[in-house]
């Protein structure tokens, strides 16, 4: 089984100067996200695995694969808790 991540349908994302703001229409809450967060959330327009996202972040930023995975995992966990991202086992 692999965990696939995707954006919650209520999520709206806008980028400003490379950083981002996320709005959840259901809860009417909004959040700021940094440049890496924007990269991840943009990728999640279609379902992705942790491995996919880690590879994307490691390729785009000057970080080790281990650091990228840790960063992506922490970000996804926070987004799942805030109902911005859905995690589905397939």
């Amino acid at each position, binding site marked *: 089984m692999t965990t696939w991540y995707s954006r919650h349908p*209520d999520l*709206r994302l*806008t*980028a*400003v*100067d490379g*950083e*981002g*703001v996320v*709005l*959840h*229409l*259901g809860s*009417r809450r*909004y959040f*700021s*996200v940094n440049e890496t967060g924007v990269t991840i959330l943009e990728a999640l327009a279609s379902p992705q695995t942790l491995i996919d996202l880690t590879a994307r972040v490691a390729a785009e930023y000057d970080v080790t694969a281990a650091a990228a995975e840790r960063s992506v995992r922490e970000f996804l966990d926070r987004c799942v808790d805030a109902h911005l991202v859905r995690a589905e086992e397939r």
Partner: protein
Amino acid sequence: MPHEVSVRTAHAGLASLLREWLDDARLALPRPVTLVVEVGPLPLSPSDSRDVFRQGNVAIRSGPPIHTVSLDWEPRLGRAVLAPQSTAANVIITEQGLQRENEMLRSFLLNVCILLVRRVGLHHVHAAALRDPHGRGWLLAGTSGSGKSTTTALFARHGWGIGTDDIAFLAEGAAPRVTDVVCWRERLALHDDAVVAVGPDGGTPLTARRKMGWFPEELGAEWLSRITPQVILFPGAEHGDTTSLTPIKGREAVTRLMRWSPWVALEADFADEHLQRLSQLASQARAFEVTLGRDLFDSPDRLLELVS
């Protein structure tokens, strides 16, 4: 040729009142929208379990599973329903509601209009909109009591063009990739202490609001229907002796604009465009947190100096 908010009602007195209110507002729309208003008792409505977004005494419900937007003016003074994508709002006002003219116009029907004009691409933000003597557009976004009206009235007397002191609508700009502010013209409303500080003569008593009001032209200013903001100020609730500015980043400006434009989270069909307008605005303008100081009354150019 811009369009306007049109009114259909069989109640002659209300028709006249609404026409005067909307004619004063001069809101220029890219497409027409219509208020269809009845006066009478409210029908019993089926229960609506959707989350409530509250603006004063108006409870707004939107989204699934019904997909209409409903506005209930409480306690059972009026009701409006907007069908998805429709550019007409069906409104019922009770006889009791009619007696509360100021609340009916500035709270209930203004909220109806805010949601109605969203359907033709105008997205409300609680902000003042002005143009300085150099031709730059300014937006002051903040809560009531933060100094928007006082600052707007002060600058109206010092050569600035004025759009609005609180009812601003973000819209597609006249230039590509630009967001403009389309302005709702109404009287700039000042408390007694602000009247003393700004010093205008005359004015119209706004009895229900315990303020005095002046249209921009009555203060010697040109009223502007549309302004392109290049500077955004977020005035804090605290006022000091000295005016000061702190620059803020684009994403912080967007989240602050969202606070003063909370309709962004209503109706998914329009949320993307609304969010894009806020984001575009934050990209095109420099944004600052500002403490509005008493020094502005003696030196209104102080803000221009701080921003330049």
